[in-house]
C-alpha cells in the first residue's frame, strides 16, 4: 500500500499546476539554450501580458516531437522558430502553418521570407570551411579541400542527419561550378561525414581532422575563446539557413503569435540576434564580431520548395556515395 501512496504523492508533487492568468504562447525553437532564454526574456519584457512557454531542441527532434504530437491529436505549439526553410516548407505543404505577412519584413531581402508569408527568416547561419590552426593549407575556395596535400583530412556534416547539411548539399548542387561532382571528388579525397555540425566542430578542435564544412558561428565563437580553429567564407559563396519563424495553423493564441513574429523581425529583435553572435537577417545592421564585412560574404541561392522535393533523392545519392564500403 505504501508504494501506492508514494506514487500518488509523487504524481501530486510533479503535477503542480502553474498559475495562468496571462495569455500563454507556446514556442518550439531550435535556438541555442541561452539564446532562446534571451529571446523569450526580451519578448516577455516587451509584452508583459504574454507568458511564453518554450521548448528547445535540435530541429530534427523538435519536428519528430511535433509529428508525434500531431499523430496523437495532442496540443501543439503556437509559434515555431526552427533552423531552416526546407523544414518550414514541408510543414507548409502539410497545411500546418498559417500565413502572416509581418509589416517588419519590408526591411528584408525578399529571398529571406516566403512570398505568401508562411515563414520569415530571422538570421543568416552560413556554412563555410573551418580549419585547425595547424592545418597545412589555408583554404580560400571549396576546391582547396580537393587538393592532394589535404587527403583524408576533411570532415563534413552528413545530410542524412543534419538539416543545415541538407541545405548545403542542395545549394552546392545548384552551383554549376561545383554540383554533385564536387561531392564525388570530396569522397575521392577521403572526406568523412559526421552526424552533425557539433561533431565536425569537435573533430577539428580536438585535432582529429584538419578541415571541416561547418556553420560560421560555431567556429567564430570558439575561436574568440581561444580554440585553435579558423573560419573562411569560400570565394564561390556559402550556403545559408535562415532560422525562420512561423505560426502554426491551429494556434490557440494567434494574436500573441503575431506579436512574437513581429518582435523577432523588429529592429530590437534583430539587435538581439546580433548580440547573440549571428548575422542578422536585417541587412541594415552591422555584422557580429569576428565576421568579415557583409559585402564580402557571397550567399548561394536556395529554392526551398525544390530543395524539399529533392531531399530524398539527395540523401540517397549521399548515402550511396559515402556508404559504399
Amino acid at each position: 500500500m505504501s508504494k501506492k501512496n508514494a506514487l500518488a504523492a509523487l504524481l501530486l508533487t510533479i503535477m503542480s499546476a502553474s498559475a495562468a492568468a496571462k495569455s500563454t504562447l507556446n514556442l518550439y525553437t531550435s535556438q541555442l539554450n541561452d539564446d532562446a532564454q534571451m529571446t523569450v526574456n526580451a519578448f516577455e519584457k516587451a509584452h508583459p501580458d504574454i507568458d511564453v512557454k518554450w521548448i528547445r531542441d535540435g530541429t530534427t527532434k523538435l519536428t519528430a516531437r511535433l509529428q508525434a504530437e500531431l499523430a496523437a491529436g495532442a496540443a501543439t505549439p503556437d509559434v515555431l522558430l526552427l533552423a531552416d526553410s526546407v523544414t518550414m516548407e514541408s510543414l507548409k505543404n502539410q497545411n500546418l502553418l498559417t500565413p502572416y505577412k509581418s509589416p517588419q519584413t519590408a526591411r528584408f531581402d525578399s529571398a529571406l521570407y516566403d512570398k505568401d508569408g508562411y515563414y520569415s527568416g530571422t538570421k543568416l547561419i552560413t556554412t563555410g570551411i573551418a580549419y585547425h590552426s595547424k592545418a597545412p593549407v589555408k583554404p580560400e575556395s571549396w576546391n582547396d579541400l580537393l587538393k592532394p596535400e589535404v587527403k583524408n583530412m576533411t570532415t563534413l556534416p552528413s545530410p542524412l542527419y543534419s538539416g543545415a547539411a541538407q541545405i548545403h548539399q542542395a545549394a552546392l548542387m545548384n552551383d554549376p561550378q561545383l554540383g554533385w561532382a564536387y561531392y564525388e571528388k570530396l569522397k575521392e579525397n577521403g572526406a568523412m561525414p559526421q552526424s552533425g555540425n557539433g561533431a565536425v566542430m569537435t573533430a577539428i578542435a580536438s585535432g582529429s581532422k584538419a578541415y571541416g564544412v561547418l556553420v560560421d558561428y560555431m567556429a567564430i565563437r570558439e575561436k574568440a575563446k581561444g580554440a585553435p580553429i579558423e573560419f573562411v567564407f569560400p570565394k564561390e559563396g556559402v550556403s545559408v539557413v535562415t532560422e525562420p519563424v512561423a505560426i502554426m495553423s491551429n494556434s490557440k493564441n494567434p494574436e500573441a503569435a503575431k506579436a512574437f513574429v513581429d518582435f523577432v523581425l523588429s529592429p530590437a529583435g534583430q539587435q538581439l540576434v546580433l548580440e547573440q553572435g549571428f548575422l542578422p537577417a536585417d541587412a541594415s545592421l552591422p555584422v557580429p564580431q569576428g565576421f568579415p564585412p557583409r559585402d564580402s560574404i557571397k550567399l548561394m541561392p536556395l529554392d526551398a520548395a525544390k530543395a524539399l522535393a529533392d531531399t530524398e533523392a539527395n540523401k540517397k545519392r549521399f548515402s550511396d556515395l559515402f556508404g559504399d564500403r
Partner: protein
Amino acid sequence: MTSMTMHQNASNHSMKGLLWLLLCLVALLSLLPSLRLLFSALVDWRQGADSSLWRVLNNRATWVALYHSVYTSGLGTLISLLLGSLFAFCLALTNIRMKQIWVFLFMLPMMIPPQVTALSWLQLFGSNSILLNSIGLAPEFGRVNPLYSPEGIALLLGIQHAPLVFLALRTQLQCLPKEHIEAARLNGASLWQVFSHIVLPLCRTALWGGATIAFVSALGNFGIPAMLGIPISYYVLPIYIYQALSSFGPSMINEVAALSVLMGILAIAIVTLQARMQRRYALPLIGMAGRSLGFTLGKWRLGIEVMMGLVLFAILVAPLLALIATSLVPTMGVPLNSDTITFAAWRGVFDVQSSTWRALTNSMVLSVSAAMVLLILSLPLAWLLVRYSSRPLRWLHSMIDIPYTLPGVVLAIACILLFSRPLPILEISLSGTLTIIFIAYLARFLTVCLKPVHSSMMQLDPAMEEAASLAGANFSQRLIDIVLPLLAPAAFAGALLVFLTAVNELTVSALLWSAGKETLGVVIFSLDESGNKVLASAISVFVVALVAMVMLLLSALSKYLPKGVIPWQS
C-alpha cells in the same frame, strides 16, 4: 483454530490478488509503448507495397543495418563478458588486495557518457594527443584512426556494458556454496578443476543474464556507433532509425515504428534464447555463503592486479582525466597549462541560478524514485515469473525488454503518442510533466532491475519455501522471510544499475522534457550541441563525483542494510 486458517487464507488471497494486480501494472507499463508502436507500424498496411512496413522490409539498407547491429552488439557482448567476468571472478574468488575499491571503481565507467570514452580514446591516439605529442609519436593529420571500424564500435560497446555483466555475475558469485568448493579442494581438486566443474556451472544463469542485458544495451546504444560509425558510413539500426527520423512528413512516425518493430523482434529472440538457456542450466542453491573465497594466486597476483589496473585506466581513468582537462580550459582544443587553466566552467556549474541545479534535482528525483519503484516491483515479479512460469508469463517476460532495447527517442515517441492527450476519465494531461518521463523510465529500466533478481530467483531452491510452508509459514511470511532476504542483494544491485543508468540518461528525456523539467542528460547534451563542451564536461565530472559520493554514503549506511546488498562490500 478454524478461524485462524480462514484468516490465513484470506490474507493469502489478498496477497495473491495484489501480486496479480502488480502483474497487470507491469504488463501495462511495458506492453503499452511496444503495442502502440506496432499499431503505428501497421496502421497503413492497406497501402500494400506503399505501406511503411513493406517499404522498410523491402529496403536492402534495413537488412544491412540489422546485420551490422547484430555483429557489433554480438562482438561487444563477448568483450563485455570477457571483461566483466574477468573482474567478477578475480574479485570474488581470489586473494586480490583491496577488493572493495576495485568493485567500487568498476561500477563507475557506466557513468561516463560513451561519447566521452570514444572521444578520449580518439584523442589519446590522435594527432593532437598530449601523450603521443610529448614523446614525438603523434600521427600526422590525415591518418585514419583504427577505432573508426565495426570492431572499434564493438570494443567501446563492450567496455561500456562490461559493468552490467560484472554486477550480474557478482551477485551470483556471492551465493556460491563454499562447502562444495572446500570439499573439492580437500579432495585434491586443482584451482582450475574447481573453477570449471563447480564455479562456472553455477554461474551459467548469471552469465546468460549478464550477456543478454549487455547485448540489448549494445543494440540500443546510439552514442558510440554515431561517433565511430557515421564517419565510415557504417549504419546500425538505431542510427538508421535516426536517419528515418530526420526525414519530413507524417509518414516518418510509421517508418520509425516499423524499424522499431524489427528491433523489438530481435530483442524478443535474444531474450527467448536466454530464458531457454537459463532454464536448462539453472542449479538451485540455498543462498548466501558465510564468507568470501580467497584462492591464493601467489606470484600471479601482482600480474593480475596490474592487468586490472590497466583495464581500469583505459575505461575509467583516461576518459575521466580527459573530461577533467576539458572542463578546465577556456574552450576545447586549447592545451591545458598554467596560463590557460580556468575555473569559469566550474563557477557556471555551481551558479545556483543555472539550470544545472534544477536538472540535478529532476534527474535525482526521477532516477532514485524509478530505482525504488522498480526494486519493489521486481521482487514479486521475479517470484511470479519463476514459480508460476507459464507461456503467457514467459511472453510478458520477453516483452519487458523491448522498451529498453529501442532507441530512447522511439520510446519517447511512443510515450507522446500514448500520453500527450489528457488521460481518459482522469482528465489530467501528462504532457510536459516529469510524470511522463517517470513513466518512460519505469518502462525502460524495468528489465535492468529485473534481470539480476530473476536470475537469482532461478537459482533459489524451492525446497526452502516448501520447508517453511510445512512448518506453517503462510504465503506472505514465506515471501517476506525467505524469498526477500535471499533476493535482496540482486535487487539492490539491479536498483543501483537503474539509478546509475537513469541519472545520466539522455535519449528518452530528450523528446519529453519541457522548460523547467530538464534532466541532466538534456542539459549536458544541449550544452554539447551549442558547442559549449567545456561546461558540458564540467557538469559530467560533477555528476560522476556526485554519484561516487552517493555510493560512499550507501557504504556508510551498509551496517543498517541486509548483508550483501552493497555490491562492493562482501
